[in-house]
């Protein structure tokens, strides 16, 4: 579904991604784990068109998308839930969801998706008129995910959905991620919380200072000593 070939990304003269390659198959949850500043968010931003790679290509469903504008990529069925939620805090929950469906014209379909999102996140239905800036962190995370789903993505990129959330909410969010996946959406999940991420993902990549250093099935990585020490904590 997504194929990344040897991309390099720079911020000015900072070389943030150094020849990264990665594959995602349809229906999978793939997780990308790595330390702070390893380049995880950079990779997601590059995929969704917020950043341009200097070279290399990105194929989404066989179509090249590297260097295209974000709006074109969204239209092809790829949604990105950015780090730190980034909800439009001066707008209501409902308006945020409407903006999620910004590019769509099928009124009927949009209405159905509203239903679906509200089913997935009943909390959002209760709060649909509330300004999203006043939601709690967890609720905002739900909104950010719901908003991305409104675009009916085939591939969903999630950047640290558990960051700053209370343990209970982390569990809920991860459960929902699995649900979304089961209803047919492919997911690329970036996480610091490697334990949790590996527990729901099919496959995983490990990124360190802009390089992919390891990849494999979740089970394999869970067993790896190297991973245990670096990312799962010594306990």
């Amino acid at each position, binding site marked *: 579904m997504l194929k990344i070939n040897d991309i390099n990304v720079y911020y000015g003269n900072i070389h943030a991604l150094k020849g990264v390659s990665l594959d995602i198959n349809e229906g999978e949850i793939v997780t990308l784990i790595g330390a702070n500043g390893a380049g995880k968010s950079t990779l997601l931003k590059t995929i969704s068109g*917020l950043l341009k790679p200097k070279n290399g290509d990105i194929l989404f469903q066989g179509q090249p998308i590297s260097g295209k504008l974000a*709006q074109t990529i969204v239209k092809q069925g790829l949604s990105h839930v*950015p780090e730190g939620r980034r909800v439009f805090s001066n707008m209501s929950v409902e308006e945020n969801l409407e*903006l999620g469906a910004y590019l769509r014209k099928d009124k009927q379909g949009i209405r159905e998706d509203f239903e679906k999102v509200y089913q997935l996140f009943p909390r959002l239905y209760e709060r649909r008129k509330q300004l999203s800036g006043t939601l709690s962190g967890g609720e905002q995370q739900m909104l950010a995910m719901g908003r991305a789903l409104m675009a009916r993505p085939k591939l969903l990129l999630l950047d640290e959905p558990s960051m700053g959330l209370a343990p209970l909410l982390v569990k809920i969010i991860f459960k929902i991620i699995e649900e979304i996946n089961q209803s047919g959406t492919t997911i690329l999940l970036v996480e610091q919380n490697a334990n949790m991420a590996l527990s729901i993902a099919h496959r995983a990549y490990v990124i360190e200072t802009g390089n992919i250093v390891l990849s494999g099935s979740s089970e394999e990585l869970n067993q790896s000593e190297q991973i245990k020490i670096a990312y799962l904590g010594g306990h």
Partner: protein
Amino acid sequence: MEIIQQLVNGVSLGSIYALIALGYTMVYGIVKLINFAHGDVFMVGAFIGFYSITVFDLGFFPALLISMTACAVLGVLIERIAYKPLRNATRIAALITAIGVSLFIEYGTIFVRGAQPEAYPGNIIPAKSIEILGVKISTQSLLILGTSLFLMVLLQFIVHKTKIGKAMRAVSHDMDAARLMGINVNNTISATFAIGSALAGAAGVIFGVYYTKIEPLMGIIPGLKAFVAAVLGGIGIIPGAMAGGLLLGVIESLVSAAGFSLWRDGVAFVVLILILIFRPAGLFGKNIREKV
């Protein structure tokens, strides 16, 4: 009776400020840029209307439309050429560019046609005064007030209810997140400038018809006043700009009426500062403290 006449005077002056302030505050609210060139687009609008009427013998409405269209294009050009490259720069840098653009339009116009004023022909819209209980109200100022109110409602509707309006607000809040929704940020900002500048153009023509005299530097003071009105009402808040404009007009008229016409602008600024001290985000603005 005289005080009522003065209030009427104030409201009609204020509705001109409001008319300019609407476009100002909209661009300001969405792009977060103090577009100092707004007053100059207003001036260009006035001249385009003037030439449409005198050289091409057009009526008021065609002239208005031409001027609005041309100003919309001008606004978009200004944005694309001068502001877009600075989108990631500091706001104060963008402000300097805006000052540069403002000077450029003013002196470009003078370079092209000289500094002398022009006068709108007097018969474009019949100017009548109606008298109610000894208070004279000119039909033109009623027209201006009506236009401002109508545009306020229209703008409010566009920004809050339409898709493009929602896109504008999204862009204003978080450009990258807006991109991720599939919003074309550049086009949305262009649309904002187009609407704001078209309003400035309309204000220019209406100003020309009402006050007759137009000249290349005519945009400076109304531009400044509109900026004050926009801040007074709360930056980016459309009904706030309307209220700010009217309030400013009424203050000025009352100060003049009290015999202090030379202190007029001074008093207006004193009131502005006082209001800001007590309401640091303007009359309609919510003083949202930065969340720590």
